[in-house]
Every structure is written in structure tokens, then in C-alpha cells.
């Protein structure tokens, strides 16, 4: 891919990461927060795909989904809403 295009996509994804990270503070529902973490992981995986690290991209995607699953398991026990 053209390096300029890669850079632009990279900036877009990194900006999206910042948006997600800020959004975590504002959501009141823990389930949403866990799903935001999943989105964070997948976006990082995309960033790494653009930075030529496919190995890491696979691992981060798998690990992020794994962590989100574990978190959802916990949320199913402790309840969703933060009062």
C-alpha cells in the first residue's frame, strides 16, 4: 500500500483508539465498557496490521476477545449497571 495512505489510516485508527479510551470513562453500563475494550483490542490489531505486524494482530485480536469473554463472564455475576 502507498505509505501516505497507510499513515492516514493509521492516524484514523489511533484517533479512534483515543475516542474509545475516553468513552470508557463515560459509559455507565459495565457491559458497554467491556465491549469497548473488545473494540479497543480489535482497533489495535488493525493498527498493527498497518504497521506490518500481522503476528501481533492475530494475538491481540484473540487476546482481546478472550479478555472480553472473561469480563462478560464476570459481569454476568456482578450485574451490569453502575449506580
Amino acid at each position, binding site marked *: 500500500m502507498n*505509505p501516505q495512505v497507510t499513515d492516514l489510516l493509521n492516524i484514523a485508527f489511533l484517533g479512534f483508539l483515543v475516542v474509545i479510551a475516553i468513552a470508557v*470513562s463515560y459509559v455507565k453500563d459495565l457491559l458497554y465498557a467491556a465491549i469497548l*475494550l473488545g473494540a479497543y483490542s480489535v482497533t489495535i490489531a488493525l493498527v498493527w496490521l498497518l504497521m*506490518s505486524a500481522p503476528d501481533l494482530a492475530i494475538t*491481540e485480536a484473540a*487476546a482481546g476477545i478472550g*479478555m472480553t469473554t*472473561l469480563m462478560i463472564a464476570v459481569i454476568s*455475576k456482578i450485574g451490569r449497571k453502575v449506580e
Partner: protein
Amino acid sequence: MGEFWSRILQNYPYVFALALFAIGIYTILTHSNLFKKVIGINIMEGSIYILFIAAGNVRGGVAPILDMTDTTLTYVHPLPQALMLTGIVVSVSVTALSLALIMKLYRFYGTVDAKEIMRIRTEVRANGARIS
């Protein structure tokens, strides 16, 4: 545009990485909900991984998988990638441990809010009883 800003623009991944690091630490330190603290840890560690990978990245380089047929390729630095693989493993285990601890705390206190836990603990201590 000044020289400073052009340098910042060239090294944009580091800027984002440090911003994410700050947001992560802010999330850990300011939220009283233990669950969000764990998410903050993941945000913080993800930012450090971005920093490492960006340090090993070469513009126009290809992934470090050996291609025997083409010797002209420029590979990106494989070392940071191998290291961050380990880093991801570590962050998964930290997350798992903290989730297990959250479950235990929920069993003991019935809440996952740090302030609430603190309140219950001081109340119980004032009454001189022990928490089961």
C-alpha cells in the same frame, strides 16, 4: 509549519501512544469502579505496545516473515513484535487475576465499587466485627 511540529507529525504514533498512556492511568486512578480500573490497565498497556511497535516500524517495510524468493524486501524490526507478544500474554494474565479478585471482592462485600468497599470496611471495623 515550524520544525517542531513537522517532527511531531512525523512521529505521530508516539504522540498517540503517550496520550493513551495518560488516559489509561487517569482511568485507573480516578474511577472508583474496580472493573473500569481493569479496563484502564488494558488501555495503558496497549498504548505501550503501540510505542514499541512504532519504534520497530519502517515506512514501506513488510512483515518479518522470511520470503526466500525475493531478497530486495525491507523488513520491519521483528524484535519489538516478539517482545510485545510476551507483553500481551502478561496483560492477559494480569486481567485474569484482577477479574478473579473482583469476583472474590464481590462475594465478600456485595459490590465492586472501591468507595463502597471502603465504607463497608470502616463500618465493620467500627463495630469491631470481622468480615467473613
